[in-house]
C-alpha cells in the first residue's frame, strides 16, 4: 500500500512540475501585462505538436527537440503579444482578456487543421527503465520532467535576479510607469516575457505528450485552466507562488485520484480554485489584504450609443421569422431553431456580461442545468414537458445564482476565472453524480417537445416554440431594462463604488440579473434537451460558453436585439457557407479578434 502512495506522490510531483512550467509563465505575464492569458494552453499544444513533428519528420534527438519546441513556442508568444495585445493598449478593461480567448480559438483551430483532431503518440525519447524505491518506482521520464522543472526554475530565477532584462521585468511588474522613467522599454519587456512564458509552456506541452504518450489539440483548454488554478493558488503575478501552487495542485489531484478515482481529478482542481477565490483571492502566500487588486482600470465596456431600431422594424422581423416555416425548407428551419436556442443563451449572457458587467465564461453550465433538470423531471418524475421546461428555468435560476453567489464580491478578471471554474464544476458533478444524472452514459430518450398534448417535435413545431419563447423572453428583458432595474444594473457595471454610495447593493442586483439570466438560459437548455432527445455532460461544454460570448460581443454587450442578431449570424452564416464548415471555429476566433480590435461596441452598440 505504501508503495502505491509513493507512486501517487511521484506522479503528483511530476504533474506538479508540468503545471509549474505553465503557471510560471502565466504569473510572469500577469506581472508585467496585468493579464490572465487564456491562450497559454494553446501555446502548450503548439509546443507538443512541434515536438511531435520534430521527432516524427526530422528524427531529432531530445535536446534538439526541446530547442525546436522552445524556438517555435517563443515565436508564437511574441506574435500573441505583438499582434493580439499591444494594439489594445488603452482600450476597455476586458478587451485583452477577450483577445487572448480569440487567439486561443484561432491557434487551436489552426493546429487542428494542420494535424487533425485525432490524438497522436509522441515517440518516447527517454529510456524506459524504472528504479524500484520502497515499493514504488521512479522512471527516467519522471526524473527528466522533475529535472527540467527544476532547471527551468533555477534558470528563471537567475534570469530575473542577475540579468538586466530580468531586472527590467521585475521593475515593470512592480511599477511599469516608474520602470519607463528609468529608461525601460516596457513593450520590449512584454515581448520578452511572452517569449519566455510561451517557451516554458511549449516545453510543458511536449513533456506531457511524452508522459501520457499522447497529445491532441483538445488538451489546450484544460492546460489553460490548470495553469490558472495553480496561478490563483500561488497568487496572481507571484512566480515562486505559482511553482508552489502547481506542486500543491499536482499532489492534490494525484491523491484525489488515489482516493476517489480518475473522473474526480478535475473536480478537485476546480473546487480548490473556487475555495481560493472565495477565501484567499490573493493566493496562499500573500499577506491578507482587504480587497483583491483591481486587475485593470478604465472603462469596462466600449462607449457607444446603441443603434436605434424602430418598433415597426422589430415587429416586421418577428413577423418574417414567424412566417419562415411556410417556405417549407426543413433544413433552413433546423438552423433557425438552433439559432433561436442560442439566442436565448445570448440573451442571458448579454444581461449578465453586458448590462451588469460580470463577464461569465461558464455560461453553458446554465444550459446543462436546465437541460438535465427538464429531462429528469420529464423522465424520472413524469412531469409533462410543458411544465418541466419552465420548472427547469426556475431551477436553473435558483441553482445558477446560488453557485455564482460566492463570486459576487470578485471583480474584473476574477469573475471570469470564477465562472469558468464553476462551469467546469457543474460539468464534473453531472459526470460524477451517477445516481441522479446517469453519469457518462448521459440522458437518452428525453421526451420530445409537446405543449398541452400538441406535439411540437416536428421541425416547424420546435421552431415556432423557440421563436415564441425567445420573443417572450426578449420582451420581458427589455421591459426589465426599461424599469429601475436597467439603470441600477448598468450603474453597478459602470462604477460599483459610486453605486454603493447611492444605496445600490451589488449582491442583490447581481443576484437578480443571474436569476433572470439563469431562467432564460435554463429554458434554452431545457428546450435543447427535448429537441435533441439526448444530452450528456459534454453537450454543453466550455466552447459553447465562448461561442455565446462571441455572439454577445458581436451584437453589442448588453444589447438585447444585438444578442439575437449575434446568435443568428454566428449560427446561420457558417451554414450558409458550408464549404467553410471545418473552419468554423477559426472564423469565430477571427471574428472575435477583429471585433475587439476594430468594433468593440459590436454591430448594434453597447447599452
Amino acid at each position, binding site marked *: 500500500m505504501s508503495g502505491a502512495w509513493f507512486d501517487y506522490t511521484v506522479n503528483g510531483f511530476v504533474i506538479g512540475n508540468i503545471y509549474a512550467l505553465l503557471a510560471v509563465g502565466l504569473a510572469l505575464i500577469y506581472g508585467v501585462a496585468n493579464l490572465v492569458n487564456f491562450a497559454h494552453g494553446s501555446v502548450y499544444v503548439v509546443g507538443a505538436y512541434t515536438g511531435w513533428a520534430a521527432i516524427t519528420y526530422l528524427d531529432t534527438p531530445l535536446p534538439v527537440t526541446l530547442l525546436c519546441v522552445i524556438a517555435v513556442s517563443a515565436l508564437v508568444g511574441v506574435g500573441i503579444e505583438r499582434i493580439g495585445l499591444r494594439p489594445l493598449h488603452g482600450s476597455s478593461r476586458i478587451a485583452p482578456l477577450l483577445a487572448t480567448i480569440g487567439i486561443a480559438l484561432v491557434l487551436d483551430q489552426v493546429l487542428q487543421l494542420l494535424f487533425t483532431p485525432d490524438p497522436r503518440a509522441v515517440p518516447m525519447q527517454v529510456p524506459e527503465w524504472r528504479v524500484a524505491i520502497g515499493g514504488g518506482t521512479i522512471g527516467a521520464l519522471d526524473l527528466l520532467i522533475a529535472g527540467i522543472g527544476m532547471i527551468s526554475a533555477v534558470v528563471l530565477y537567475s534570469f530575473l535576479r542577475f540579468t538586466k532584462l530580468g531586472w527590467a521585468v521585475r521593475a515593470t511588474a*512592480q*511599477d511599469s*510607469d516608474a*520602470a519607463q522613467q*528609468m529608461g525601460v522599454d516596457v513593450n520590449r519587456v512584454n515581448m520578452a516575457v511572452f517569449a519566455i512564458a510561451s517557451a516554458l509552456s511549449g516545453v510543458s506541452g511536449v513533456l506531457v505528450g511524452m508522459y501520457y504518450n499522447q497529445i491532441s489539440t483538445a488538451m489546450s483548454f484544460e492546460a489553460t485552466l490548470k495553469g490558472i488554478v495553480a496561478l490563483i493558488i500561488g497568487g496572481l503575478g507571484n512566480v515562486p507562488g505559482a511553482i508552489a501552487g502547481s506542486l500543491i495542485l499536482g499532489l492534490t489531484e494525484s491523491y484525489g485520484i488515489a482516493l476517489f478515482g480518475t473522473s474526480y481529478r478535475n473536480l478537485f482542481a476546480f473546487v480548490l480554485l473556487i475555495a481560493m477565490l472565495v477565501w484567499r483571492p490573493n493566493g496562499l502566500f500573500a499577506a491578507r489584504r482587504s480587497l483583491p487588486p483591481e486587475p485593470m482600470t478604465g472603462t469596462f465596456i466600449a462607449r457607444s450609443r446603441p443603434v436605434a431600431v424602430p418598433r415597426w422594424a422589430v415587429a416586421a422581423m418577428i413577423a418574417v421569422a414567424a412566417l419562415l416555416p411556410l417556405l417549407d425548407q426543413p433544413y433552413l428551419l433546423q438552423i433557425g431553431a438552433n439559432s433561436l436556442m442560442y439566442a436565448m443563451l445570448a440573451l442571458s449572457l448579454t444581461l449578465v456580461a453586458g448590462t451588469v458587467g460580470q463577464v461569465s465564461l461558464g455560461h453553458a453550465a446554465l444550459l446543462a442545468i436546465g437541460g438535465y433538470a427538464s429531462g429528469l423531471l420529464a423522465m424520472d418524475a413524469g412531469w409533462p414537458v410543458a411544465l418541466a421546461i419552465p420548472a427547469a428555468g426556475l431551477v436553473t435560476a435558483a441553482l445558477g445564482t446560488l453557485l455564482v453567489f460566492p463570486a459576487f464580491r470578485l471583480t474584473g478578471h476574477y469573475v471570469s476565472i470564477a465562472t469558468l471554474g464553476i462551469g467546469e464544476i457543474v460539468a464534473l458533478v453531472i459526470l460524477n453524480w451517477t445516481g441522479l444524472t446517469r453519469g457518462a452514459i448521459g440522458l437518452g430518450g428525453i421526451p420530445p417537445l409537446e405543449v398541452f398534448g400538441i406535439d411540437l417535435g416536428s421541425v416547424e413545431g420546435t421552431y415556432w416554440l423557440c421563436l415564441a419563447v425567445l420573443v417572450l423572453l426578449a420582451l420581458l428583458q427589455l421591459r426589465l431594462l426599461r424599469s429601475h432595474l436597467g439603470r441600477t444594473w448598468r450603474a453597478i457595471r459602470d462604477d460599483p463604488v459610486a453605486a454603493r454610495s447611492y444605496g445600490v447593493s451589488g449582491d442583490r442586483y447581481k443576484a437578480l440579473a443571474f436569476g433572470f439570466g439563469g431562467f432564460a438560459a435554463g429554458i434554452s437548455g431545457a428546450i435543447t434537451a427535448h429537441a435533441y432527445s439526448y444530452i450528456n455532460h459534454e453537450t454543453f461544454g466550455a466552447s459553447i460558453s465562448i461561442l455565446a460570448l462571441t455572439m454577445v460581443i458581436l451584437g453589442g454587450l448588453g444589447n438585447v436585439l444585438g444578442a439575437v442578431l449575434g446568435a443568428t449570424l454566428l449560427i446561420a452564416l457558417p451554414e450558409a457557407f458550408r464549404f467553410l464548415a471545418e473552419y468554423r471555429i477559426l472564423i469565430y476566433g477571427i471574428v472575435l479578434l477583429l471585433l475587439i480590435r476594430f468594433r468593440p461596441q459590436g454591430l448594434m452598440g453597447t447599452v
Partner: protein
Amino acid sequence: MSALLRLEGINSFYGPVQVHFDLNLAVEAGQIVCLLGGNASGKSTTMKTVLGLQRPGSGRVWFDGAEITGLPTPQVIRRGIGSVPEARRLFPAMTVRENLLMGAYARSDRAAIAADEERVLGLFPRLRERLGQRAGTMSGGEQQMLAMARALMGRPKLICMDEPTMGLSPLFVDRVLELIQAINREGVTVFMVEQNASLALGIAHYGYVLQTGRIALQGPAGELLRDPRIRDAYLGGTARDGGDAG
C-alpha cells in the same frame, strides 16, 4: 543663450479638460528651477509632458538643443533626463541596491556605474547602511532619498522632481532640500515641481508660478519670495482685501 530645457506654447488636455494654456518656460543649465502652484494648477502635467508620459495637444518641448516632443519616455530618459516621480514610485520588492542600479538601466558603462554608485552613496550615506533592504520597507524620508539617488544613477544632465517634499516630516524636508542643493552643486540641473512655495524658492534660482494652466508669475527666486502676489496665487485673488499681514 539657449536653455537646457524649454517648453514652447504647450496646450495640453486631460480628457475634455484643458490643463495648459500656451505654457512657455525655460530651465537654464546649472540652475535649480521650481514650478509652483496650488492644487490642480497643472504642475504635475507639466512634468509628465517633459518626461513624455503625456503628449501635449500642441506645442514643443526642447531638451539639450533637440526637440523631444512626443518621444517615448525611455528615449527621453536616454537623452539625459532623470526622474524623481511624485510619491517616489520605487520598486518596493527590490532592494535598495537593485533600485539604485535600475536608475542606471539606460547606461551600459559598467565600470562607471560602479563608480557612480560609490559617489551617490557618498551623497546619501544613509542608503549605504540599507543596501540589502527592500525599498518598500523604508520610511517615507528614506524612500525619497532613494528616489533621488536612483535618478542620479542615470548620470542625468537634468533631474525632474515632482513634489519631493510631499508627505515628509519637517526634519526630512530640510534634509531633502539640502540634498537637492548638493546635487545641483555637482553640476546637475534641477527642475522641481513643488506646492510648498517658500521652501522651494528658498533653494531655487528661478521660479514659475502656475495658476490654472497659465504662468501667473515668474522671476528670480529671491524676488518671488518677497512678492505678495504669490500668496494671492495660492489663497485666491482677493487675499489683499482682508488687510493681510504679509
